[in-house]
Every structure is written in C-alpha cells, then in structure tokens.
C-alpha cells in the first residue's frame, strides 16, 4: 500500500480539523465548513501529492468524517452535514491542487468528483448513526430532521423532512462544495504571488478567524483550543531538545511547572508581589531557561538513556518541591537543631502546597483592561502571538549555526566533537532553549487558568508531550503541530465525547435488559483508556514509523525515495535511518 501514509496523514488532519468545529454547536454550518476546507487546502499545498492520491485522500478524509459523525452526531445531528461538506471541500481542493489542468472548469469537475465520494461516506455515516447508533444510545432519531432545519437555513427553506432527503442533502452539499473550492483554488493559483504566501494565508486565516466564528456561533470552542495550543507550544519547545538535539527528556513538564510557578509567585496576591504579566512572562522564561542550564550542566554529559532517567527524576522532584514548599499552617515554625541549639524557622508558604496558588493576576492591556477569564478572545490572540513568535524564532534557530550544531550532534556526537563543536555547550543550549519556550507556555498557562496546582505537572504531561513530538515527526515543526492537534484533540475532545456516547449506549442497553446496575466497565469507558492510547502511540510509532507521521521533508525523501519501494525490510531500515533517536 504505497500511499497509505499519505492518506492517513490527510485523513488524520481532516479528523483533527473536524474536531474543531464538531466540538460544539453546528450553528455556523457553512462558515465552519469553509474553515475546515481551508485547513485541508493548506495541507494539500504542503504535501503535493498527485491527483489520484488527492481523490483517495478525500476518501480517507470522508471516512474520518464518518467516524466523527458517529461519535458526535448523537448529540448534534447537524454536525454530520458539516462533516460531509468539509470532507467534500477538502477532497475538492485535494483533487484539484496538483492536477496539471489549471483550468477552473476542470478543477471544478475534479472537486465535484472528490466531494461526491466524500459525501457518500458522510451519507453512509449519517445513515449508520440514525439507524444504528442513535437508537442504541437511546436517542430519538426523529430529532434529526428537526435539528437540521434549525441548523442549516437552506434545509428549512426547502422543507427537507425525511432522513433520506437529509442524506441526499449532505451528499449534494459535499459535491457542490468540492466543486466550488476546486475552482476557487485554481483561480487563486493563477494569482501572481510567491508560492508560500497563499499557503501562509490559508493556514493563518482560519486560525485567526476561529474566535470570530466561535463568538458568532457561541461554540465555546476556545475553551478547548487554548489548552491544546499551550500544549503545542510546549511540544515545540520539547522538539528542540528531542527532535533537533536528539536528547530524550522525560521531565520536560518540570520546566513548564517552573514557568507557571514563577508566574504564580510573582504575579498574584499570594506572596504580595503583583507584577505585570508582561514583565513576568519574560522572567518566567528566563527562570525556566536558567533552570534548564542548572539541571542540564551536571547531567547532559551523561549518555542518552541515563539522561532520560535523570530528567525523569527532575520531572518528579520539581512538583514534589512545589508541593512541599508551602501549604503548611500559616505562621508555623520548623524547629531545627544546629550543634544542639534549637533554631526555629518560620515557615513561609511559598507555593501553596497541594492547594496551589489561586488566583493569579491576568494580563492587562490599556484598551482591553484586565483579560477576562470568561472572554477567551484576547487570550486566544495573545497565545497565537506567542506561538507565532516561538515558531518564527525556532525556525531561525534551526537554520543557523546553532541549529546545524544540534543536528550534527544528533547524527554523530563524536564526529561533531571532532569538527570543533563543543558538545556539552551545544546540548546545554538546546536544553535551555527548550526550557525557555516551556517557560513562556507555563507563564501563559498560569495566567490563563488563573490558578495552578502541583498535580498539573506530573509525569503524564511529559509523556503526552513526548507522544505529540514523536507522533508528528521528530524535528519537524509542522509534524509536531499536527501530532499535537491529534493527541490533544483525542485527549481533550474525542475521548471524553466518545466516552459519553459509549456510556449512553451501555446505559440504554442496561435499561433494555432491565438490569439495575448502570455502571460502565473500564473497557467501555474511553476516559480510562488514555494511557493505553499514549502507550500504543509510542510503541507503534517506534515499530512502524519512527520518523513520525510527517517526517522532516528531507528525511522523508531519504526514507522513501520512491513510495513503491517500501517493503517489509524498510521498517528496520527506517529505524536505523532515524538519526534523532541515536544516543
């Protein structure tokens, strides 16, 4: 299956994109569909696959759409239609993008074809949902039409009533949107612009528009998106350490914690120091970077797997420290004895112990005033700004003397040393840079949540971040972002939603059987399978695709010079070829 990975990538992103707008009310059918279409368009520009691939990719996207529909449609049936449209739009774009016929008419036809395939998938999934899933979960399938007419204005106007018509509607809309987008993007391509400008626009536009759509549709999307973005920011920092420099850091959450606690201590009434967020975020980043240097200096000369364990140790100790440096009774004293003389030390509650620090002051801007916890829009844009800057600067680092030194060291430490690269210093730089970006992330996190607890920074955070980096592709920022969207989307959106659905099904079944117990076993409760998901991601990625879903462009070319040459031996070859994992 030569192109499987490409389909999986495309479909996977379709899946992630889907989660964004399927998260909540589908009040903005067309708007959010366009949004999804744009993101998929960005993807197909990035991964310029030939025509046939595009259609197949649309197919995969549609399949994922179907899964989304099944999982989500239970609660919000109109979503299914949108899933269909998005798949159609995406497929249309994909079908068009690299086709040699730069002719809007032909592109429209291609788009329509692909959209139709996707639409068929969506239709099928709607069908499955209406007649299999919804009854099983105890939901009245009759709600469908009603809901749809509320959601999509056209449906109301046309008076679509029956389930079959809804299916047709999804199908038609999908086809139509495929055609429109195919034609539109063809027209856009003929514009005299540098090739990466439309690409950037296509990525940036939806990202920037999300809050407006969110507000207009009252989707409450940002509540989920902001934590996801924070994690992606952290993963970008971790990628410097693991992906670029090849150092396995299992305690990255420690730096996140240090950034957050620095912010909390300096910018809250807790210690009476209430500095401005705009100052504190820099302090937090600096403190995290210095912590990276201090922790790294003695440990970085250690060999790879020992380093992993030591960083894991730091990751454990730091939350313990924050837990223990406070939370005692106010005004309590600790009596120590110094050469027999008792000395009383007044206990200062630095970190609030298990209760953490609450509240933390929000940022303040002249026009906006204090950032309001209930209005997420300024937060969102602030985070986008931080992330944009992070990506910008990390890019510069990668393409520089320092970045080359990281990669050389990752490839062959001894040879790098012999080429005049001071290995320990280079490692330290990577470590502290990684820590710095997580310091920014931590500062934002503290201010955004408004309170921090030591339990938010435990080992599983480090592992989730590692999963994000490994899933997407070590050393590749696009990959890390996509991996982050997938893992976090799963962790914060799909698993809880899916768990709810499964629970409803189980309960309905239990009721039908007249059984009084309504408990849900661990096998049925998806929320209890997070660990399994992360574990499987790590193992399977190592075995099957150590280079990640979206490997570094160059490395991808290296590992798959021709897709058809992949054979069973290539797994070992890939594993060997993946330099970032070399100790």
């Amino acid at each position: 299956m030569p192109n499987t990975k490409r389909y999986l990538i495309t479909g996977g992103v379709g899946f992630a994109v889907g989660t964004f707008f399927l998260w909540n009310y589908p009040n903005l059918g067309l708007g959010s569909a366009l949004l999804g279409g744009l993101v998929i368009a960005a993807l197909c520009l990035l991964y310029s696959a030939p025509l046939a691939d595009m259609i197949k990719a649309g197919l995969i996207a549609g399949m994922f759409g179907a899964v989304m529909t099944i999982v989500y449609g239970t609660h919000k049936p109109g979503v299914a239609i949108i899933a269909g449209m998005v798949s159609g739009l995406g497929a249309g774009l994909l079908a068009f993008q690299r086709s040699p016929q730069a002719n809007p008419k032909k592109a429209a036809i291609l788009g329509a074809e692909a959209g139709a395939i996707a639409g068929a998938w969506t239709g099928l999934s709607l069908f499955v949902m209406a007649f299999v899933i919804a009854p099983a979960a105890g939901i009245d399938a009759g709600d469908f039409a009603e809901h749809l007419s509320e959601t999509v204005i056209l449906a109301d106007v046309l008076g679509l009533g029956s389930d079959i018509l809804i299916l047709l509607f999804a199908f038609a809309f999908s086809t139509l949107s495929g055609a429109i987008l195919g034609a539109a993007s063809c027209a856009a391509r003929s514009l005299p612009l540098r090739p990466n400008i439309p690409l950037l626009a296509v990525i940036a536009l939806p990202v920037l528009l999300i809050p407006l759509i969110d507000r207009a549709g009252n989707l409450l999307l940002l509540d989920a998106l902001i934590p996801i973005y924070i994690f992606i920011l952290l993963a970008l920092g971790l990628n410097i350490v693991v992906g670029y420099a090849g150092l396995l850091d299992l305690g990255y959450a420690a730096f996140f914690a240090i950034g957050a606690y620095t912010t909390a201590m300096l910018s809250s009434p807790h210690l009476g120091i209430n500095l401005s967020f705009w100052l504190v975020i820099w302090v937090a980043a600096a403190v995290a970077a210095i912590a990276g240097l201090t922790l790294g200096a003695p440990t970085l000369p250690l060999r790879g797997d020992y380093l992993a364990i030591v960083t894991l140790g730091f990751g454990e100790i730091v939350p313990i420290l924050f837990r223990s440096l406070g939370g005692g009774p106010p005004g309590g004293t600790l009596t120590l004895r110094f050469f027999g003389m008792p000395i009383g030390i007044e206990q200062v509650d630095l970190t609030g112990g298990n209760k953490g620090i609450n509240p933390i002051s929000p940022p303040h801007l002249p026009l906006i005033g204090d950032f309001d916890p209930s209005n997420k829009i300024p937060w969102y844009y602030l985070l986008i700004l931080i992330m944009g800057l992070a990506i910008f600067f990390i890019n510069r680092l990668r393409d520089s003397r320092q970045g080359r030194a990281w990669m050389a060291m990752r490839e062959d430490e001894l040879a790098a040393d012999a080429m005049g690269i001071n290995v320990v210093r280079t490692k330290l730089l990577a470590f502290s840079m990684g820590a710095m970006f997580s310091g920014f992330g931590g500062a934002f996190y503290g201010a955004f949540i408004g309170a921090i607890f030591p339990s938010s920074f435990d080992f599983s955070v480090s592992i989730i971040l590692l999963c994000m980096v490994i899933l997407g592709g070590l050393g590749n920022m696009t990959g890390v972002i996509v991996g982050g969207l997938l893992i976090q989307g799963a962790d914060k959106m799909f698993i809880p939603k899916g768990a709810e659905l499964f629970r409803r099904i189980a309960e309905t079944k239990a009721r039908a059987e007249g059984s009084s117990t309504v408990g849900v076993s661990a096998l049925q409760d998806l929320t209890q399978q997070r660990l399994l998901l992360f574990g499987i991601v790590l193992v399977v990625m190592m075995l099957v695709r150590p280079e990640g879903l979206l490997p570094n462009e160059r490395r991808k070319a290296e590992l798959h010079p021709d897709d058809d040459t992949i054979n069973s031996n290539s797994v070992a070859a890939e594993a060997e070829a993946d330099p970032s994992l070399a100790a």
Partner: protein
Amino acid sequence: MAPLLQARGITKRFGGLTAVSDVSFEIEKGSIVGLIGPNGAGKTTFFNMITGLYTPSDGDMIFDGKRINGTKPSEVTKLGIGRTFQNIRLFAHMTALENVLVGQHCRMHTSLLGTLFRTASMRAEEKAARQKAFELLEYVGLGRNSADEMAKNLPYGDQRRLEVARALATDPKLLLLDEPTAGMNPKETDALTELIYRVRDERDLTVLLIEHDMKVVMGISERVTVLDRGIKISEGLPREVQTDPKVVEAYLGTGHAAKGKGGGAPVFDKA
C-alpha cells in the same frame, strides 16, 4: 623551522596494557607524513591522542608550539587540526553542504542573539560560510549538484571526498587522514592521492595519514613512521622504511624477513 607537530615520548597505558610506548616523532610543516603499522600497532591510539580523545599517560604532544595533552577534541580542532574517520562518519542525514557548514562551525562567531534577530553580521557570516562551503565542495571534486544531496546518498568515493571537504572547512593547519583509501578501488585511490597532494600544495597544509596498507602509504607519503606493538620501529623515507628488516618482520613475520631483504619492495605488493 619548528616542526608543526611534535610528539615527545608519548606513552599510553590502558590498565596493564601499554598501547603506545615512548613514541617520539615530528612532522615538518608542509610535509605529507604516513603513520603505518600492522593491525593493533597502536596507530589509532596515537591518532586519538593527537585529536584529544585520549590523554597520553606520559610524554608531551606539542602542536604549533602548544602542549595539547588532554585538550578536548573540539578545542584541538579549533587550534587547527582537522580529521577524517576510518569508517566514514559523515552526518548522514544532513546534506553535503550542511556537512561542510558544520565543519565551519568553530570558525563562525554568531551568538545566540545574533541568530534570533538575524543581524546583518549574522547574515553576512552565513552567506560567506555558504560561499566557502560551495567552493570547498567544488575543490574536492563534488559538483554543485551534490550540495543538496543527503550525505548518505553519495557514492562511497564522494563520501570520502566530502569528509575531506568537511575537515578542510575547519581551516586546519594539520590534516589527519585515518585510512583515507580504505575500501576504495584503484581508480578512486589514485584520485584521492591526487587530492591529498593538491590540498597540501594549494592550501598550504600539512598532512598526516594513517594506513595499514603499505602500498598506499608508499605512494603518497614523503616520510613514513612505522609503529609495531606500540613502539616506533622505523622512520624515514618510504623506500628506506620499505626495506628495513624490522618493518618487514613486523608485517610478515620473521620467516619472511630474510626473503624480504633480498626481494626488497615487491614483498609489500602482496601485503
């Protein structure tokens, strides 16, 4: 003129084992010197003491008037000793160009802030480095179109050349080549020999090469030092060394020494 590299009574012991014992020799500026010996003679240990991977147990290693015992490899490179590896150690998943750029790392000065804010001096330095990297690639005979090729994908001979280019990028005064022709066919060997001469003549370099294949060393080197079981057994012009009975014995055992004496050079054709 003072020699560029001077080893004075270098000894290296690993636990009870003495790998190199009281070896002294000098490398004149601008010469091409071969260090040879059968397997296990201590050549590589000696090499590693020059490049800073090992610290000599005894004796002094003096480079360009400076004692470099125990200097870290990266520092040694900065002082002006560039090297290649016996089993090619390129940065396999970086392009040829990047490999050479990494070689220039220790001669570049852009700081972290310079990188982050892409200052004018950083851009100028980067541009100059690229320029130089392209020149070096062409110099060793890799065309511009190999520049974007991943090092791993280059043919074997080109990988050797790239290693030389990468070593040259560190602006060395002394170039150390560890079995540079290992695994090469005669044509590639000739081309590399020619390159080594060119490097010496045009770039004003001194070259020290390690070989266990006598024939190659005889073809390239102007002077040869022979190690056997950690001891320097012979030194001099290739032709002299070649007929030295001690050398013949070291390579072929006592039985051949007598024959070697009469037969002279041809013995080594079989070696």
